[in-house]
Every structure is written in structure tokens, then in C-alpha cells.
């Protein structure tokens, strides 16, 4: 028999617990990506001299595989005396990788702010901190929320890479179940279905969010 329902139900609770780890890794990774990406984008504007360095850095991060970056943080940092456990190293790697992508999204958001907004802030003698905090960011963020949401989904789908450094997330748990029972069909298919369901739901959420934001922008 190819598909065993009893076995599928038996492993469901174990996979459910692992799904929590996957979601934790996704959310933590995205918090790092969103904040670090914002910092990169703001520094780029606030200190124009850093522009070239930051674009090279972003290009470097985007041009190399996430898996290698995960290995790099996990295996190389201990050589410098920084020992991270697998989960921390993995989440950090995912966060930094997607920060590079997010910083470009923020940049597009900032580029879309009308010049007059900057000039008005200067005319009102606002500090650059206040300009960013109260004028630029509140206007720049809403239009790019859907783009950031897409990266959240993309990041979520990359979390199975953490299984390569033995983080007990969904994929790793499925693999362990598979190697213990010699049944790979149910665990891996269930993991696939979980990702499919979550992706479809979040895609629908992003679409409705986009609608709300567009309507607000119209007003």
C-alpha cells in the first residue's frame, strides 16, 4: 500500500510540533530581515558615501547560495570564537540573506517618495532622524508591504534548508521519521502539503492586504 492513513495520523502530532519550529524560524528570520534591510536602506540614504559598499555587499549576499551562507555561519564563526547553536546560526543566516533582498524593496519605497517631502522637511528644520521617522518611513512603507510579504513567503519556503544543519524543523523531522520507519511517502508529502497550504493562505492574505492598501492610497 502506497499511502497509509493510520501512519499519517500517527506522525501528525510530531510534525505539528516541528511546524512550530519552522514558523518560529520564519518569524524570527523575517524580523531580522525586515529590520536589517531597513537599516541598510536608511544608512544608504543618510550616509551617501556608503552607497557603493552597501550595493556590493547586497550583491555578494544575493549572488551566493543561502545553504552555503548557513554553513558559513555555522562552521566558520566558531573559528573566531563565536559559537552559535544550529537554530540561531540558521535563523541569522536566513535573516541576513533576506535583509539584502528587503533593503532593495525599501530602497524602491524611498525612491518613490516625492522630492518635495525631503525639501519640506529641510525647510521645517527637521533633523534627519525625525524626517525618516515621521515623514519618509510612514509614507514609504505601506506601498511596499505586499513586496515584503512576498519575501516573507519566500523566506518561509527556504526554512527547510535549516535541516542541513540539523535544526529540528519540519523537513528534518520528516527525514528522521523516514529513516526510522523506512516510510518517506507520508512525512514528506505531509510537509509538502503544509507548505502548499501555508503559501496559498499567505498569498491570499497578501492579495487582500494589497487591496486594502490600494484603497487607502486612493483616498
Amino acid at each position, binding site marked *: 500500500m502506497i499511502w497509509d492513513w493510520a501512519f499519517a495520523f500517527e506522525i501528525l502530532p510530531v510534525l505539528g510540533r516541528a511546524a512550530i519550529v519552522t514558523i518560529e524560524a520564519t518569524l524570527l528570520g523575517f524580523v531580522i530581515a525586515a529590520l536589517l534591510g531597513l537599516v541598510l536602506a536608511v544608512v544608504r540614504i543618510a550616509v551617501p558615501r556608503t552607497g557603493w559598499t552597501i550595493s*556590493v555587499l547586497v550583491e555578494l549576499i544575493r*549572488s551566493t547560495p543561502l545553504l*552555503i551562507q548557513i*554553513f558559513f555561519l555555522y*562552521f566558520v564563526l566558531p573559528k573566531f570564537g563565536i559559537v552559535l547553536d544550529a537554530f540561531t546560526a540558521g535563523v541569522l543566516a536566513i535573516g541576513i540573506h533576506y535583509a539584502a533582498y528587503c533593503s532593495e524593496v525599501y530602497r524602491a519605497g524611498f525612491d518613490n517618495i516625492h522630492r518635495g517631502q525631503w525639501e519640506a522637511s529641510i525647510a521645517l528644520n527637521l533633523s534627519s532622524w525625525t524626517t525618516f521617522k515621521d515623514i519618509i518611513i510612514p509614507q514609504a512603507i505601506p506601498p511596499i508591504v505586499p513586496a515584503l510579504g512576498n519575501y516573507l513567503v519566500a523566506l518561509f519556503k527556504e526554512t*527547510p534548508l535549516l535541516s542541513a544543519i540539523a535544526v529540528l524543523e519540519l523537513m528534518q523531522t520528516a527525514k528522521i521519521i*523516514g529513516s526510522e520507519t523506512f516510510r518517506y511517502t507520508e512525512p514528506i508529502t505531509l510537509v509538502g502539503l503544509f507548505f*502548499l497550504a501555508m503559501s496559498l493562505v499567505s498569498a491570499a492574505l497578501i492579495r487582500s492586504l494589497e487591496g486594502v492598501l490600494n484603497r487607502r492610497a486612493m483616498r
Partner: protein
Amino acid sequence: MGIRTLVGMLVAALAFIGVLATQEAYRLFLPGLLQGAVLTIEIALLGSLLAVVMGVLAALARMYGPAPLRWLATVYVEIFRGTSALVQLFWLFFVLPQFGVTLDAFPVAVLALGLNVGAYGSEVVRGAIQSVARGQWEAATALNMSRAQMLRRIILPQAFVAMIPPWGNLFIELLKSTALVSLITLSDLAFKAQQMNQNTFKTIPIFTLVLLMYLAMSLVLTIGMRLLERRASLGLARGRAA
């Protein structure tokens, strides 16, 4: 980023590899890593080829196909975009044999990556076809062309130009995803790196070289796509002016 900066980065990356190669601690690993890089390139090329074929087929099926075909293409795109590449890879490698289809790791790698990126590519193709001005369709209709003729002679050549930059991004994604195939026992660049790391614990030289090699490959791809884009849009500009 300008093409000059990209070329500069490529030269810098290759020069860096060259300088490191003069050091005994690094030279040691180069032959093995290069061997892995060859496999990485093979998988990336074949995967890209499959991705383009699947992308075009799925897009055309979704836009112009009869209902069952349209359905099939939609299911394909949603499944491959909705689950992660690694899950697809493992599914094809571990689960497919249960259904009596046993493939070697290499075809599984090409298949999984090609199908995965092809699903994203179908949206690119669809967007590019839709971006061709309506008047082009109308003019082709006025010239009494068949649907296939319109697509082949009028629409696709113009859509092609719009497709180049997003396909470039997808090829980079695919190249980077090839690192995943190390997890289904293929000895690509990432696999060689991990194997050498486990045997020698010379983590820093190995991973520095590997990162530089991936960087160089990505940059070659990016620069190549930029040049292609420049060439293709040159022709279009001339066509419009005439």
C-alpha cells in the same frame, strides 16, 4: 548596479581566487572544488533549459490552452510555487520510488530545479506576453494571421525582450538552488565543500573559496544576461524608429 561594477566584481573575485591559489592551504582544495563546480554548472544549465521549456509551455497552456490543459498548468504552477524547492527535491528522490519510478540523483536534481523555476518562469512569460501592446494583436488579426502565427512571429519576439531581466533573476535563483542537490548525495560544489570540511576541518579556506566560486558563476550569469538584454533591446529600438 552598472555592468562595469559587475565586471569589476567578477575580475576581483577571480583575482582573489587566483591569489588564494598561490597559498598551499588553499591550493589543496581547488581541484576537488572545481570538480564540484563542473557538476553545479551542468545541473544549472540543464535545469535552466527545462525551466524555460516548462515556463513557456505552462504560460501558453494557461493563456490559450483548452480547459483541461489550463487546469493542469495551473495546478503545476501552484504546487511548484507553493512548496519549497527542497521539499520537491526530497519528494522526487524519496517518495517517487514508492510509486515505482526510481530515478538517479542527477535527473531528479535537474527535474526538481527545472520544474520549480519553470513554475515561476511561467508567470514571467505570461506577464511579458500580456505586456505586448494590444495594437500588435489587432494588426496581426488584420493581416489575417492564425493564432499560432501571431504568437510566433509578432508577439513572442517582442515579449522576449521583456522576459530577459526576470529570467536572469530566475537563472540566478536556480544556480543558487543547485546547492540543495548536495543534500540528495550529488557531489556538486556544496557537497564537496561539506565533505572536505568534515575531513579536514579547514573551514575558512574551503568556504571562502566556495563562496567566491559561486559569486563568480552568478556574476558571469548576470553579466551575460545584461549583455543579452542590451542586444535584444537594441534591435527593438531600431525597429521602432524605422
